[in-house]
């Protein structure tokens, strides 16, 4: 989407503000923002959208959904090829505890939240060009519970998506409910996507099944050839936010800080199961590091570079679909932003790969809560227009 001169000025202001903010902080090194122009559609082979933790967003009050749908519509129409655009929902698709049973009073709300995300791939261009919406499970989609209760919540989500697909919208839950993956599929000539249910790994995974996941991942990397490999999962590989232990000591009276440092919270990167997850992935990546590991889980937008050969070359946290959290800094960080938004990976016909970060103005999750429908719609339109590309980088 070609930015208007006004948006270009605003983008420059955002980049300048980000540069100043990071440069002025005593312990955060200067992060050089890059600014790659949107490629011409003729040069683009496929587009992958990344949004996570959108489980609180509703179609008629969260402008991030509106903005993303417009972006998907633009690229679906511009590419003029079928099945070249994929929207990847990076887990925690329904807060607080996944999709309840159809007889449960919570089901209508859960269903509305899923519908808001499914609508992103329901526009006319998206339907005509076969844009796929693929949901990955997060810990909240498991109802934060191991065992049968959690598996049932995830099965409910898959059943709901199956019903929506039966009505004509191409949406799936991958890996399938209760299975760890990897689910592997190729898009065009230059993109391979591996999807993993990392919540399964943390909540219910048995060692023998984990070994099988590892072997399947190795095989998928080894057979990728010249394709850019992107791994999509809910849990990020690194994070400079609360799940990564980057939080002020006094937030939560120091309790959160102590529990995180002690590795007592399963969903934090410091817990033993989470560490075993990243260690297993590092082993699987050895010799074939993926171009990008995309996760959500923390509620902000982060772009990080790999530091050692076992790391993915790039890592992103795109978990700002409906919530925002504080951010810190870790080595390898290239960009961070605390507002609602999403990311877009552009794979060029020559195999080049660009990453764009699109975010709301300010540093929060804007919502339109007006009771009057016309006013709310006006708010949705104007706020969605204020979203902008706040960062871009050539990954390859």
């Amino acid at each position, binding site marked *: 989407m070609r930015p208007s001169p006004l948006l270009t000025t605003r983008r420059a202001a955002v980049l300048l503000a980000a540069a100043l903010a990071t440069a002025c902080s005593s312990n955060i090194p200067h992060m050089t923002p890059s600014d790659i122009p949107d490629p011409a559609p003729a040069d683009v082979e496929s587009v992958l959208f990344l949004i996570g933790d959108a489980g609180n967003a509703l179609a008629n009050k969260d402008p991030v959904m509106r903005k993303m749908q417009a972006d998907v519509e633009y690229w679906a129409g511009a590419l003029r090829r079928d099945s070249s655009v994929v929207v990847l929902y990076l887990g925690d698709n329904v807060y607080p505890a996944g999709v309840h049973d159809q007889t449960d009073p919570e089901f209508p709300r859960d269903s509305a939240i899923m519908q808001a995300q499914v609508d992103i791939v329901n526009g006319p261009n998206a339907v005509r060009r076969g844009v796929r919406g693929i949901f990955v499970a997060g*810990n909240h989609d498991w109802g*934060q*519970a191991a065992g049968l209760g959690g598996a049932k919540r995830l099965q409910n989500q898959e059943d709901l998506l199956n019903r929506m697909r039966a009505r004509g919208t191409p949406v799936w839950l991958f890996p399938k409910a209760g299975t760890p993956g990897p689910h592997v599929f190729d898009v065009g000539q230059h993109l391979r996507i591996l999807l993993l249910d990392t919540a399964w790994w943390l909540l219910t995974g048995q060692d023998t099944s984990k070994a099988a996941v590892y072997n399947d991942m190795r095989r998928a990397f080894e057979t990728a050839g010249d394709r850019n490999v992107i791994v999509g999962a809910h849990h990020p590989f690194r994070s400079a936010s609360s799940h990564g232990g980057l939080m002020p000591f006094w937030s*939560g*009276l120091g*309790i*959160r800080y*102590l*529990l995180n*440092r*002690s*590795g*007592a*919270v*399963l*969903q934090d990167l*410091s*817990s*033993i*199961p989470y*560490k075993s997850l990243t260690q297993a992935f590092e082993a699987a990546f050895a010799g074939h590091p993926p171009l990008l590991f995309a996760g959500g889980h923390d509620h902000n937008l982060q772009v990080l570079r790999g530091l050692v050969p076992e790391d993915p070359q790039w890592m992103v946290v795109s978990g700002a679909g409906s919530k925002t959290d504080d951010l810190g800094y870790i080595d390898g960080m290239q960009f961070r932003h605390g507002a609602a938004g999403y990311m877009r990976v552009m794979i060029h016909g020559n195999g080049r790969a660009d990453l764009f970060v699109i975010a709301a103005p300010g540093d929060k999750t804007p919502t339109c809560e007006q009771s009057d429908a016309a006013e709310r719609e006006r708010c949705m339109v104007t706020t969605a227009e204020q979203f902008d590309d706040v960062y871009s980088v050539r990954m390859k």
Partner: protein
Amino acid sequence: MRRIRTALLTLLAVTAGHAVSPATASAQRSIPAAMVGGVAGAASGGYIAISVIVAESRTGKYLHSYQDALGWRSAPVLIGGTGGAIIGLTDPDRLWRTMLYGGAGTLAGVGVGVLAGQLIWEGPEAKWAGGAIGAGLGMAIGSTLGVFLPLKDKDEDSGQAQEPASIPIIFTFRF
């Protein structure tokens, strides 16, 4: 007759005043102590709750989110807060001693726990986990001793008039 009645009422009022004034002073001293005890007890309970959570995580039973800490695991906060307030209200000296012993136990527990954690487990979380568990354990032991050990001055002199502390020195003069 009226003079006698007035004199009696005056005597009653003065006697009542004397009887009530020490209790009022005691109450004035006890209410802040109860508040301090409530806060300190809740904080101590919080520390103990954290150590229980961390100890559970080391056996493979994790919190799924920070909100999970608000369930039954936060019971020590309520128990500590209530217990601290009651001790502060009824026996402020015991409260100060409990806080002192609890603090000392915490410090000792952190030191021992950090060392033990690094010996038992691996990774940067080991010392934090050991320290957190040790702190809670030390806090619990210290506070328990502070509450239940007899207070020398109080218990030995109970029922007697309070006197300034003194060391009896006896001189013998032989003539």
